[in-house]
């Protein structure tokens, strides 16, 4: 089962984990492993960050995340895939993204989770703008390394 959410409000990892665990109607005790990744707002700039503004393309965002999860589901034997991505103004330390995957197999859970994060980073239409404490602001540039991480899934399982 795939669950996608794009939302302003925060998410609770414990609660999301319980949702992944409790898909027992279909999976019973077949879940062997659950892999989770969350991303947070870092404050690494010399100029202190007040918050990160997350802009997105409503409609396409959900469609893109859904397609990413479906691709993961086709490549690995997953049970559930849950993706949450926040939008709006997020302070340093706040959670931005959640990807959780349950599977009968540990390798499938890990791979589908990491794949989803890597593809999301280069294909889901979100844009970050840093808003600094001193009033300065600037759009975050896309990173080559993210493109490379996404591309490595093209030629290897």
């Amino acid at each position, binding site marked *: 089962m795939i669950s996608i959410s794009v939302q302003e409000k925060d998410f609770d990892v414990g609660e999301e984990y319980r949702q992944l665990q409790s898909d027992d109607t279909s999976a019973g005790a077949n879940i062997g492993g659950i892999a989770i990744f969350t*991303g947070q707002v870092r404050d690494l700039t010399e100029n202190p960050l007040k918050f990160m503004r*997350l*802009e*997105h*393309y409503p*409609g*396409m965002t959900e*469609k*893109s995340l859904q397609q990413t999860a479906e691709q993961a589901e086709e490549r690995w034997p997953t049970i559930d895939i849950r993706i949450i*991505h926040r939008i709006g103004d997020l302070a340093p330390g706040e959670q*931005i*993204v959640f990807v959780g995957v349950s599977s009968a197999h540990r390798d499938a859970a890990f791979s589908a989770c990491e794949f989803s*994060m890597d593809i*999301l*980073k*280069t*294909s*889901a*239409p*979100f*844009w*970050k*703008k840093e808003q600094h404490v001193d009033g300065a602001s600037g*759009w*975050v*540039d*896309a990173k080559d390394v*993210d493109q490379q991480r996404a591309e490595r899934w093209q030629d290897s399982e």
Partner: protein
Amino acid sequence: MKVLFFGSLREQLGTGELNTALPDGVKTIGQLLQSLQSQGDAWKLALGTGNVLFAVNQDMVDENTAINDSDEVALFPPVTGG
């Protein structure tokens, strides 16, 4: 047709949405990008970077993708979510 702009492009252009007829001779989204640059210096500056991504009907596509008047078209910089 509806052309949407996001992120730094939206900010540079001062608009998130343009309602326009598909210009004569424009058959692909790459050609639309070229055509829009003729609207003025701000458009040329924002759209002429060689670093613009395309979506047609909410799917990311390449510059050779055909478009028509009823499509929802979007132009935006490389994405930075996650």
